[in-house]
């Protein structure tokens, strides 16, 4: 079985709750995604944009080479990918010169569109999420999956094993809470521009 088959197997196991499989997957996914992100972000132009979901899809395809895998497995992949995406972007942001700050509108309903101007905001969001995770790990996961990987509510519900209604509730409150946190920590920019 070639490399693509391996990933699928790992995914299937992770989908069934195999922690060990997840641990093996994470660095693979992270490595792949970082390469891709670097490629997409490498340009010398300052206004380069990156679509997170595109990145995730692309990574997925490269790793599994399969387009028709059942969505349950895909969701688990995306759950992992969401965490990875967050890491990738935050790492990148920390590496950037955080003095460049021009606010660019980002829509919470769609995937994050990242651009280097926002490095400060992304770091702030990451920190806020970390704080959120202390009180409500599930809400943090919902935000991650929704925001960084563009999963639908049904998919998130499936991955987390809760009802869609619960996901909706988590999302609603998490948004409100993050908005609050970000307005406190980013005093000189409108949190709406991040959220």
């Amino acid at each position: 079985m070639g490399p693509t088959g391996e990933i699928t197997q790992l995914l299937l196991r992770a989908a069934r709750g195999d922690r060990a499989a997840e641990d093996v997957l994470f660095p693979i996914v992270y490595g792949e995604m970082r390469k891709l992100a670097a490629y997409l972000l490498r340009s010398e132009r300052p206004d380069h944009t990156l679509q997170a979901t595109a990145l995730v899809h692309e990574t997925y395809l490269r790793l599994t080479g399969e387009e028709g895998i059942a969505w349950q497995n895909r969701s688990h992949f995306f759950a992992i990918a969401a965490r990875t995406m967050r890491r990738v972007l935050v790492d990148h942001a920390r590496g950037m010169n955080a003095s460049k700050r021009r606010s660019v509108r980002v829509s919470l309903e769609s995937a994050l569109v990242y651009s280097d101007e926002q490095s400060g905001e992304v770091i702030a969001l990451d920190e806020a999420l970390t704080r959120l995770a202390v009180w409500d790990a599930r809400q943090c996961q919902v935000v991650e999956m929704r925001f960084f990987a563009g999963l639908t509510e049904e998919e998130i519900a499936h991955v987390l094993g809760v009802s869609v209604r619960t996901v909706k509730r988590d999302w609603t409150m998490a948004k409100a809470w993050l908005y609050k946190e970000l307005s406190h920590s980013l005093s000189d920019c409108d949190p709406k521009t991040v959220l």
Partner: protein
Amino acid sequence: MMSAERWDRLKDLFEAALALLAPQRASFIEEACRGDPELKAELQELVANHEALGRFLSGSSPGPDYTLPAGATLGKRFRVVRPLGKGGMGEVYEAFDQELQELLALKILRPELALNSESVTRLIQEIQLARKVTHRNVCRVFDLNRGTHEGRSIVFITMELLAGETLAERLRRDGPLDAVTAAEIATQIAAGIDAAHAAGIIHRDFKSANVMLVRLEGNTTRVVVMDFGLARNVACNRPALTAPGMIAGTPAYMAPEQLAGEAASRASDIYAFGLVLAEMRAGELEPEWKTAVTRCLERQPSKRPLSAGAAIGPISRRAGEDSRWIAVACLIALAVIVALFAGTLRFLKGRSTVHEGAQLMLADVVNSTGDPQIAGVGVELRRELAQSAYFNLWDDDRRRAVLQQMGRPADTALSGEVARETALRDGVPYVLFGTVAPLGDGFAIDLRLEELEPHSIFSGRHWVFSTPAGTRAAMHDAVHDASRWVRSTMGESSKDLIASDRPPQDITTTSWEALTLYAEAEQARTRNSQDEAVTLLRRSVALDSHFALGYMRLGDLLLTMHQQGEGIRAWEAAVAEASRLSLTRREELRIRGLFASEVQDYTNAEIAFSQLEREYPRDFLWSFYLGDALRWQGRFAEAAQRLDSALRKNPASVATMSNLASTLLLGNRLDELNRILQSLASSAPDLAAYYLGLRAFANEDYPGAIAALQTAAASKNPDRSNRANTGLACVLAELGRYSEARQVLEEGIRAATAAARPGARADKLLMMAYLDLRQNRRADLRGRCLEAVGVEDSPQRTARSAILLARAGYFDDARKFSQALTQFPVCPLITSAIQRINGELDLRQAHIASAVKFFEAANRVEPRVRLKDYLGRAYTASGNYAGGIAAFSRIANTPALLWETVDFDYPGILTDSLLDMAQCAESAHDRAGFARALELYARRRSAPDDGIPGAADVRRRLSNSWAPGN
């Protein structure tokens, strides 16, 4: 100070607060957090944030992400100012030409398209032509350029920048125009179109959305036609979901020949121009306008005016006489609107640009309210959405077939992943998920519209919408809102929305119970429990006697189950209710058309189906039924065209191929018939064999006909084998081999009984009764006729029996049946039947003149393709031999009519008519006619059964009466 318990409490309170209406929240928070100011502050802030965000994010759609940001410079010369919109082929920007120091419009091709060199070549050719046109009424195209952005090569076009609004928007805003204004605009449009035509460019997609009204100084308006020839060159981006033969373009404006698949031409531009002329006006048009529009809309392209200017000649002359054109008063300068190549222009609201005519699947609406009556919401939503002519609601009847493909049981719910997969398999790009959930005191409808990516099950774009909470009473409004949101997100222009937008309660019923029963009946239908569905529907119309939709469905089912009598009555009720505006336009036309077809009123059927075909050009069904209606009227060439069109839209439709085969056979177009038979041979060989049999008969290859029909009769499909069996019996009877014909019919009766098909059995009994008539077995005839009628409620069968009974001299029986027919609605089927029965009664009792009158009346009402042997017999009896010969000649010369005798007439009747024709010719002393009839008769009945006259018998018996030397 936060802790796990506080956090959970905060969550619960937050959720509770949000369940209330905004004004009530403050007091709730006050109450709930009494004694805990920190918690109160937290909660207040959370709720306030939510409200702020809510406004910010509600009903959002993903914003467009443009390739070029403001400030980007292409080709070192054109600096992007801002994006203006997206079309099907690319993005449009306002840009500044740094060399020439002026603003212009810049349109970039989507990168995938730019890579297709064939597209680019074609585009270049068009632009070469377009550049040459410098006319104030045509949008200037400057050049085709290349540039780079982020390492990618970008192909783009520079064009004139226009500020104003489109004619379509103007009409939407202000309604139709007065004659003078419209004439001035039309004159400018015509000048533009003609200038482009003169340069060799065809527009191909002319419509009111492609006409720009630019306000100039001094309150005059410059009318500019945009997007010449550039729309259709580039291949569609979604090959997986492009059905073969899918028509690119705006169907509503397409000329008939374009819809039929021919290339666009100047004449098709003129057709579209005519439609726009009509669009600009309303109400009773002045004669010169009517003339202009009618001439442009001629079905035959060669009959249309040669130029747009010529088309509106009378209009502009008139306008010039009346008054000077008054400048257009209220043009609101909206954001700068620039020409787009394809698709419709959308503002920057993140609206979708959905390919017109795309399919939308409505997944099963999830009812999480616990109230079973909410099942009606799904039904209402479906029917609301069905009103759109812009996209096609996926036909729910497909679900069984596709689910079967997926290896799933037929009653699997279409939800979530199953819905997505089903949609993907069936090439449906859009899926709508809906949930009705409890909210506070009432309900809310949550919708999610997803655009599926081809080749994968990853969701592409999606849009969400929620209706405000409402009680059940307000549910109609909620459904209405929901449907309007779906339709507008799918890109329907507001004008279309308004034109075909009836509120749900108008198009269903005010009785929730009736609607629930209807919903249950639909479920039963999916499970193929037709009897259950019929019972439920009968109850639903009992609850609401104005429930047109229920009647319609009931009629559909009953007719499928061959209960013609009650089925027709149900449809009649639906039609009656339809005129009270309780059906959607599409349903109303459909019902009218199908009802008319069923009762053989093909003129009205043609009208209804033509309209349906025009308004819903992607549905093959309307072309199919239109073809059927034309065929019955004897207009075989036109019928073949429509059926061809239906076949293009749905190449897999065996029914269409079958109808086309009979049409070509009747129209004697044998080459084309061969082609169709080849297609049929691969998908339905038993049907192909059937038509081969008919054709063989028409070619006088009688052994071949018998062999082919025997093959067809061996089909596993009970309907087809049944028909082939009757066909075989008909051929044998034509050949005079009655005992074999009877044997075949007996076999058929046994098979029909075994398959529990009483209707088929009854029809075969009637066939045998006709043979009884020819062999003078009157008692047998009577027994069979009475048995046939008793089987099920079918006016057609009743009529046929009565005719035979009358011919056999059973006058009371015939009259009784004729009386029974009068309780049916007045329609061609019933009227002609009663007249024929009366005619036969009179003819048998030698009241010839009266018989002729009745038969002539029947002839006028019956469709042309029907056999009119009765006319021939009556004319012969009345001494009108010329009339008799004419009537019989038609039958004699068209052996392809065998097709008709199988379902509607009797076995052997074609050749029997030859005999009648010979007798008529003899009475007329028409030797030539006599000889002709006899020759053909001889070839048919070369070896008849005993007792059936052969050619020699006939010659001997008849020519005896002629004096020698005549």
